[in-house]
């Protein structure tokens, strides 16, 4: 194939945009570039620049994708923590109601709320296991055991026999409420901190 050109040779140097000597046929790119050093270096610069830009774009895409993944993960964790906080708050409300019934010597209602409380605590302990710190797990399980004993005692023996027994019952019930309220409060605090 013959290419048209409008260049000339001056003292052996090729000038113009096409540096092929007249009548030279180009058989391949390699041959073309070896025959034209200026074109080759230009091509290398463009190719190199394109490569660097491409690499930069790839790195940037990866960074953006990673940031998006991290943001999505954080959003999921925040929602999870929010749900856990709400659930522990509900448990604390049940514990509070239980305490109210105990204070009013309403044994039947207290027994029902104690059962509700135990069921809710058991579910929450399994569901939100990872959100209860190790040092609070023991207090949580102990609260569960205490409510179990109270529930059984109230349903089989009835209300406390004397003021001292009632005092003990109230003390333990307060302690249980405190444990559960603390967990809910800590989770809400963490949710708020994340929002900030």
């Amino acid at each position, binding site marked *: 194939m013959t290419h048209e050109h409008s260049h000339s040779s001056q003292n052996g140097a090729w000038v113009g945009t096409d540096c092929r000597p007249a009548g030279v046929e180009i058989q391949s790119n390699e041959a073309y570039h070896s025959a034209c050093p200026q074109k080759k270096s230009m091509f290398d610069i463009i190719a190199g620049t394109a490569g660097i830009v491409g690499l930069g774009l790839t790195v940037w895409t990866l960074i953006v994708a990673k940031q998006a993944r991290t943001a999505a993960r954080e959003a999921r964790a925040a929602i999870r923590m929010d749900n856990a906080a709400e659930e522990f708050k509900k448990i604390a409300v049940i514990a509070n109601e239980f305490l109210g019934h105990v204070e009013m010597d309403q044994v039947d209602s207290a027994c029902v709320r104690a059962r509700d409380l135990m069921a809710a605590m058991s579910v929450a302990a399994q569901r939100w296991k990872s959100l209860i710190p190790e040092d609070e*797990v023991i207090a949580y399980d*102990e609260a569960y055991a205490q409510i*179990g004993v109270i529930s059984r005692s109230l349903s089989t023996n009835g209300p406390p026999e004397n003021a001292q027994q009632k005092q003990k019952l109230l003390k333990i019930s307060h302690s249980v409420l405190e444990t559960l309220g603390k967990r809910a409060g800590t989770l809400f605090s963490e949710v708020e901190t994340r929002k900030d």
Partner: protein
Amino acid sequence: MPSNSDFIPLVTKLLTRTRENKVVWKGTYEADIFVCVLEGGFTFQVEKGASNFRKLEMTDSAGATIFRMRAVEPDPETDRDNDQQWEPLEELWERARRAALDIDKKVNEASKILDQI
């Protein structure tokens, strides 16, 4: 199906740790029931019943009962399993009570007070 004697080694281990004060026993609303919660959500509840029996129950973190052991004071009519379980359960209950109510410390304090009178 496992029999209660399968759990005797665990009860013995719990008793050993209780003797060494390495587990914490707590009192409950019922004066004769004591609880001990271990890491991992395992709860032991030891009880002295009205008819003088001793009972130990182990539950997991979901509140499911792992095993329940009950023994009465041995007499010629009680069976071998009961007699084998009585001794560790009786000692465990007594030690749990001492630990939960801090009896040793209180006895020492009372003794000091009596010395000063």
